[in-house]
Structure formats: structure tokens, C-alpha cells
């Protein structure tokens, strides 16, 4: 039962255009910054918001066909949704919350409660079956919400920001739980998140959503290797420069962006035009004096922040364009790097990887 | 601002809602009066006493007469509960007795008029009532005053006299608060017929209500007593009003169809 989405949807003044596919046995992440349109997309797939254009098809079943005029209401869709705010029914106990999807579809009360009790047990909250949502801890409530989405054995499982409301400790535990449940879930699985770590660790394919559009689809490795947008690049920690690639007389290329220009090796067979340049922070060299050497890219600017990660430090510079350099902690000490210190940053043209857009 | 306006409007309307339902005529003089006389009178006296009151005020400048019209039983009850009434005019001796025996007591009691009952029907007589017997027909919607109200008791007496009590009473659809309420229900056409006093079909409503006389041999003669209520602050003026009713007032009462006292 493959999910095929190809739609434009609008909510208020906001619009989203997305086309992607999700097959059973694979977990797809809809990943993007807040405000990018992910929740509009969730609402559309769930059936709460009919799309303006396009179709949504699940295993041959037409859920939405904007041009054809058909819209299957949410209650008839074989889906299970876990919501960002959980939205557990406050007037029902945990077990009745979980039993709800079965009873709503006509199931008998005792059968529904029995299956709910089993599922709650498997997810580790069997003892809290009769508790009200307001008496549950964050992690417990999350498990109950997950159970409620799973219990009717839907063809499509949709988890909206499943871990974002949790504290760090609970997050780790719940992530493992979710991973386990996803692995044994036979249908299509979609996770919506703004956290790249969550996406990378739980999902097989990432669909990047930015400003109402899908900017890239691929596995975490594919995206890490060839990110196609600043967000994607930031996501994997690279410097990214987006602008027009113009040829220089000596065969190199000048990537002209709004924030400054960078010299890069001319990519083979390219005609120039819109392109994205990528630079690993580790390839940026910092010095207190103007560097000697043949590096074609030399910039001078103030240190705006220093973030220590393990034995390395990521140093942000207010150069034109802005840069992130990764240096050892001893370098930080040796150079006396602090916020406000002026330094020289340099890197070779060939270290800038150019991808046509 | 909008909220203040709404609040103000609601307060005004609520105030109006709590307005009295029993108050009758009032004096029209804005200046502070010398004497204020409060009168409780049977509802059937509304029109006649309104005119009598006006005449008394004209004859006694500086006096304001305020009326409280209603069912005689209710009025007597109010007086017995301590309502500050100067003169009481009842449509039956029973309720004057009540004020005399169970209430503050009375002075100068005298009968000042008599009245007869009649059948009243809406204009056009939709149910085709021509006499008392017609009131016993199936489906006739008959309205009486409640028991205890003089005209209500009298009506039941008339039925007993005519031997039609059971059948007629079975047609009663409402027991009204006083005789004017009976007239209102008949006037609007919601009732097929009612029993009221002959005096209740005033010229004002003659186009909407038709009077059907009741034969004298079964009819009831209602005797109306009037008296000064003991404890009145204006006992002298109250007595002169009673005298006025017995004097100049008699002609006015006759014009409205009342019979002279026995």
C-alpha cells in the first residue's frame, strides 16, 4: 500500500506544494524548519484539509482528487495519527483513549479494551491504563498517544513531532520505543519533525520541506553528501553559498551571492548560472595575520560565536559571506579566539564543492 | 462603550418589567398634592371609578386619587396584609366582610351599586352562542373568572340556578385573575365566550365584544359595598369620597350600566 502524494494545499495565507512517495516498510521523514508547511501537509494527508490541486492516493484508494472533486473524509481513511500536542481526550482514561479508534469504527467495548490493555502493556504503560491524561507524565502520555495511533492497525501511520515535547531523558527512551514500533509496523510510516537528528536516526528517507516546497528527497546519506539547500547543508553542518556561478579568466569560477563572493573550482560541463557551493568547516583555516600561501579565498572578520563539541570547536565568523570554521581546542587557545576577535579565514577554491541548481 | 449601552438598556427594560400590574389611574398634577387618597376597587369598576375619581379631584382641588383595580378577593387580601388603602369598593359583600372581620376593620360601610351578569362573546360570535344552554355545547371554549373572584363565584351561581353547572363547567378552559382578564380573552377571539358584568361591555370595546343577556330568573344581582378602611391617614377625605360616590357618582355609575343600590 504505497502512499502517493502530489498536491498543493493552502491554510489561511500559507501555501504548500509537495510531491513524494512513501512505500510500506520504509519510514519517511517530512523534515523542515518550523513554519515550512509540514503541519499543513499533515492535515492534508489526514484528510482535515482538502488540497487545492492534486491527488493523494493510498494503495490504489483515492483519498483526495482535487480536480476530480473527491475527498475522503478523515474517518474513512485507514490512518492512525499521533499529534504534536498529543490531543488525548481529557475526559477518557488512557485505556479508553486507546480503545477509541476501535469503538468509533463499531467495535465492541470489551474487545476494544482488551486490545488496548495489551498494547499499553507492550508499550510499557499497562499500569496506567485507568489514569486520566492529566495524571500522566510526559513520557507516559506519549506512549498512550502512540498506542492510540497504532491500535486500529492502519495502513498509514503519521507521527507529528513525536519527540519534541519531551525532556532530553524521556526523549532518548521514547525514541527507542518509537524505533521499535516503527520497525514492526507493516504499513506506510511518516514522521514529521523539525529535528534533523530525529529524522536521521528514525527514518530511511527524508523529504525536506522548506517555505511551502519540497526541496530535496533522499536518504540521510544522500542528503549529507549532496545537500541542495542551505537548510539541508546547515542540517549536516556545512557552509553553504547559494548564488550565480560566473567564469573567471583562469578557469576557476566565482560564486556570487548576496552576502559576498567565493572562488570555486569550475565544475566540469557546467554552464554557470544558479549554483550552490558547499564547504566543510574543517577546511577553513584561521590565522591572526594575513595568510601566506595560494588560497584563493581570503576573508577577514569578527568572531561572533564559538561552540565547543567534544575536542573541536565550531567558530562562526561575521565575514562576507558568513563562515563557520572548525578548529581544535588548542587552536582556539593558541589564537586567543574569543567573541569579537578579528581573524583571517582562508580556504582553497578547490575545497568549495559546487552543485548546479 | 457598546457594553455599557447594552447594560443600560437591559437595566431599563428590567425595571420596566418589574413594573406593577395592578396600578390603575394616576393623578396628573406635578406639584406636591395636599391629599393623596388610595382606593382599592373591583376591576369591574375601572371605567366608572376612573371618571368618578376625576370628578372628585376636580371638585376637591389639591386631592389626588390613586386607584388600585383588581379582583375583590385579591384586594381584600392585600388590605388584610397591611396595604395602606383608604377606601375599598368590593364587587361582593363577602370580601368586605373579610376586611371587616379578618382585617383592619372598616367604617361607614354602605352599598353603592348593583350589577348583573351577562354572557360576552367575540364580535361575529364564532361559536354561535345565543343563550346559557349554548354554553353547554361540546367544544365551546368558555372563560370564567377564578373562584373567589366575585364575578367568578356569581357565574357559577348562575349556572347552578340554570341547572347547567356540570356541562358548562366542563367547557371552562381558563380561570382568569379578574373580570377584565376574561374580557381580554374574549376580545382577542381566543375564547368563544365568557361570563362578565353587563357593565364590562363599554363603548370602547363594543365593536369587538358582543353582550348576550342572561334571563333575570336565573341571573345574580351583585351588590357592591364601599367603606373607609380603618387606619386610613385621610379618613375624612376618604369619607367624603364615599359620600361623593353616593351623590354625584351615582349618575356616572348609571351611565356605565350599573344599577342603583338596593
Amino acid at each position, binding site marked *: 500500500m504505497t502512499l502517493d502524494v502530489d498536491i498543493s494545499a493552502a491554510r489561511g495565507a500559507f501555501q504548500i506544494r509537495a510531491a513524494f512517495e512513501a512505500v510500506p516498510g520504509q519510514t519517511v521523514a517530512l523534515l523542515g524548519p518550523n513554519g515550512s508547511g509540514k503541519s499543513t501537509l499533515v492535515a492534508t494527508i489526514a484528510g482535515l484539509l482538502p488540497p487545492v490541486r492534486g491527488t493523494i492516493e493510498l494503495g490504489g484508494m483515492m483519498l483526495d482528487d482535487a480536480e476530480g472533486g473527491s475527498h475522503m473524509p478523515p474517518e474513512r481513511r485507514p490512518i492512525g495519527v499521533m499529534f504534536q*500536542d498529543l490531543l*488525548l*481526550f481529557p475526559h477518557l482514561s488512557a485505556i479508553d483513549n486507546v480503545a*477509541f479508534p476501535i469503538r*468509533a469504527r463499531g467495535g465492541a467495548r470489551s474487545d476494544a479494551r482488551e486490545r488496548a490493555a495489551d498494547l499499553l502493556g507492550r508499550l510499557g504503560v499497562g499500569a496506567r491504563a485507568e489514569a486520566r491524561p*492529566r495524571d500522566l507524565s510526559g513520557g507516559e*502520555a506519549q506512549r498512550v498517544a502512540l498506542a492510540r495511533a497504532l491500535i486500529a492497525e492502519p495502513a498509514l501511520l503519521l507521527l507529528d513531532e513525536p519527540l519534541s515535547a519531551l525532556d532530553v531523558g524521556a526523549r532518548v527512551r521514547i525514541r527507542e520505543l518509537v524505533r521499535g514500533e516503527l520497525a514492526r509496523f507493516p504499513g506506510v510510516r511518516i514522521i514529521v519533525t523539525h529535528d534533523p537528528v530525529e529524522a536521521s536516526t528514525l527514518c530511511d528517507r527524508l523529504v525536506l520541506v522548506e517555505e511551502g516546497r519540497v526541496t530535496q528527497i533522499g536518504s540521510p546519506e544522500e542528503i549529507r553528501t549532496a545537500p541542495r539547500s542551505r537548510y539541508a547543508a546547515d542540517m549536516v553542518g556545512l557552509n553553504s553559498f547559494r548564488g550565480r556561478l560566473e567564469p573567471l579568466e583562469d578557469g576557476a569560477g566565482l560564486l556570487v551571492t548576496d552576502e559576498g563572493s567565493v572562488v570555486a573550482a569550475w565544475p566540469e560541463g557546467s554552464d554557470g548560472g544558479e549554483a550552490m557551493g558547499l564547504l566543510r568547516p574543517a577546511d577553513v583555516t584561521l590565522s591572526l595575520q594575513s595568510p601566506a600561501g595560494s588560497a584563493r579565498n581570503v576573508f577577514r572578520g569578527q568572531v561572533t560565536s564559538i561552540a565547543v563539541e567534544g575536542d573541536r570547536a565550531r567558530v562562526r565568523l561575521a565575514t562576507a559571506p558568513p563562515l563557520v570554521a572548525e578548529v581544535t581546542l588548542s587552536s582556539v587557545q593558541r589564537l586567543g579566539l574569543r567573541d569579537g576577535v578579528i581573524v583571517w579565514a582562508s580556504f582553497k577554491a578547490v575545497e568549495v564543492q559546487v552543485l548546479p541548481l | 462603550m457598546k457594553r455599557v449601552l447594552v447594560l443600560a438598556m437591559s437595566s431599563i427594560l428590567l425595571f420596566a418589567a418589574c413594573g406593577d*400590574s395592578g396600578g390603575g389611574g394616576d393623578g396628573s398634577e406635578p406639584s406636591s398634592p395636599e391629599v393623596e387618597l388610595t382606593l382599592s376597587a373591583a376591576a369591574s369598576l375601572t371605567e366608572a371609578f376612573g371618571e368618578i375619581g376625576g370628578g372628585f379631584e376636580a371638585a376637591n382641588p389639591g386631592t389626588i386619587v390613586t386607584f388600585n383595580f383588581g379582583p375583590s378577593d385579591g384586594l381584600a*387580601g392585600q388590605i388584610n396584609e397591611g396595604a395602606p388603602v383608604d377606601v375599598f369598593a368590593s364587587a361582593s359583600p363577602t370580601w368586605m366582610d373579610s376586611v371587616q372581620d379578618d382585617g383592619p376593620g372598616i367604617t361607614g360601610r354602605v352599598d353603592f351599586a348593583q350589577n348583573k351578569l351577562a354572557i360576552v362573546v367575540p364580535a361575529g360570535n364564532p361559536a354561535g352562542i345565543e343563550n346559557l344552554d349554548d354554553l353547554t355545547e361540546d367544544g365551546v371554549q368558555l372563560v370564567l373568572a377564578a373562584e373567589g373572584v366575585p364575578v367568578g363565584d356569581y357565574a357559577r351561581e348562575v349556572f347552578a340556578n340554570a341547572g347547567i353547572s356540570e356541562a358548562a363547567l366542563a367547557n371552562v378552559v381558563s380561570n382568569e385573575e379578574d373580570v377584565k382578564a376574561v374580557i381580554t380573552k374574549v376580545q382577542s377571539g381566543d375564547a368563544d365566550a365568557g361570563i362578565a358584568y353587563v357593565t364590562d361591555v363599554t363603548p370602547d370595546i363594543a365593536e369587538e365584544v358582543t353582550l348576550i343577556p342572561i334571563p333575570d330568573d336565573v341571573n345574580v344581582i351583585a351588590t357592591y359595598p364601599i367603606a373607609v378602611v380603618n387606619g386610613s391617614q385621610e379618613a375624612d377625605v376618604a369619607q367624603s369620597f364615599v359620600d361623593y360616590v353616593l351623590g354625584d357618582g351615582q349618575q356616572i355609575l348609571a351611565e356605565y350600566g350599573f344599577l342603583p343600590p338596593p
Partner: protein
Amino acid sequence: MATDSRSSPSTASSPHRRGRIPAGFVVLAALGVALVALPLLGLVLRTPWSRIVEILTSETALTALRLSLVVATTAAAISFVLGFSLAWVLVRSTFPGKTLVRAVVVLPLVMPPVVAGVGLLAAFGRRNGILGSWLYEWFGIQLTFTTGAAVLAATFVSFPLAVLALEAGLRGLDERLEDAATTLGASRWYVLRWVTLPLMAPQIAAALVLSWARALGEFGATITFAGNLQGRTQTLPLAVFEQLQSDTDAAFAVSMLLILLAFAVILSLRGRFLR
């Protein structure tokens, strides 16, 4: 605490302010209580307790009681069904003239009851009513002087209370819970029955209690429009009024019954629904 949604407002208050109530408020509050309590106290003291059983088991009283219960309950039920539907439309849709509609619907609250009765006659009177005359001429249906008229009068005055309480309840609902329910497979009817209504239970109880109590006490519109006949239209307030003219003891006794009835209903719901 879980980050789920709740429909009831927070009842947190600052611990530092508890107990420090301005004296002025206390005095005014006491006056308010006295205003209501004194007439009740007067009634209690004037009620002829030695005769009360005899009076209340009389045919007049029992008939009026039975009729009042039937009329008030029917009126409250009608007010609820119609009121819920209207509240839904007012809260969840927009249409031109919505403000006017709400103003009209709330009007009976500020209308003198007798005026309401006159209005009902103007609409449903047999001869002159705009709808009533048509019903009578074409179908022979007469509304005045019937128990139905008493129900109609009681519904007219209690309907606005139901609408206001239910509207407040619907407004306070988190609609996302209803959306969630549909994605979990619930039809719109199922959502209404198992999610919307249960979440509104306190406001529903308030609507029912308020409209029932108002319907129980209705007098002016009833006596003007429905008339006064034992067993058919003489509800408890009308019985009290009639008794007041002749047997004040009985009037007090029946008044006491009315009050005890209303009290019982209010108290029975206090623990569960009214805050």
C-alpha cells in the same frame, strides 16, 4: 504533566493573595446574600408547617406540581435541543446578520414576561395570531388554553438561557480534539456523542438547570397566553397566585414547595457540575 489540551480554565491563584479580601467586598457580598436570603427566610417563617402536608397533598397542589414538572422538563428539553443547534451555528459558522440573530434570541431574557405572553398571543392567538390564525383556519389547531401553550410560554423564556450556556461551552472547546477524533475513525455523529458533548458536560448541565428552573417559575407569559386551568395549564406559580387571592396560607405552602424543588435540583448538581 502531559501536554494535552484541556477545556476547563486554569483555577490557579496566587498563594500570597488568598485570605486578603477587601472589607468593602465582604460587606457588599453580605448585602447580596441578605437580599436573596431574607425573602426566603420570610417564606420559611410564614409557611404554615403544621398544615403543609395537608395543603401539599391537596388535589390543587398535586395537580399543579405534576403539571409544572411536565411543562418545565419538556420546555427544558426543547430549549436544549434547539439551543444546542443554534449555539453550534453561532459558534461555528459565519453568516450576515449573526449579531442580530443573537440579539433577538437573547431578547426574552430582558422582556417582561407579560409582554412575552402578549407576543405569544400575537403570534399564536386563534383569531389574530399571525401563525395561530392560519393554523386554526386551515387545520383547526388551537394553541391557546392548552398544556402545549404552557410549554410554549415556558420554552420561550428559558430558551435564551440554554443558548447562552451552550454557546459558552462550545466556544471553550478545543476543536482540535474533534479533528483528532475524526482521524481516529469517528464519524461526525460519534464525535458529537462521545467527544463534544462529554467535554461540554458542565455547560450542558448549567444550560439544563438554568432553563428548567426558569421554565418552572414562569408566570406572566403562561397566564396571558395559556390561561389558568387546573390540570391543564395551572402550573405551580399560577396556583400560588390564585391561592394568594383567597388562602394565603396555601399560597405560602405551595411557594415553599416551588423553592424546595428548585433547591433540590441545584444542590444535586452542585457537587458534580456547578463550580
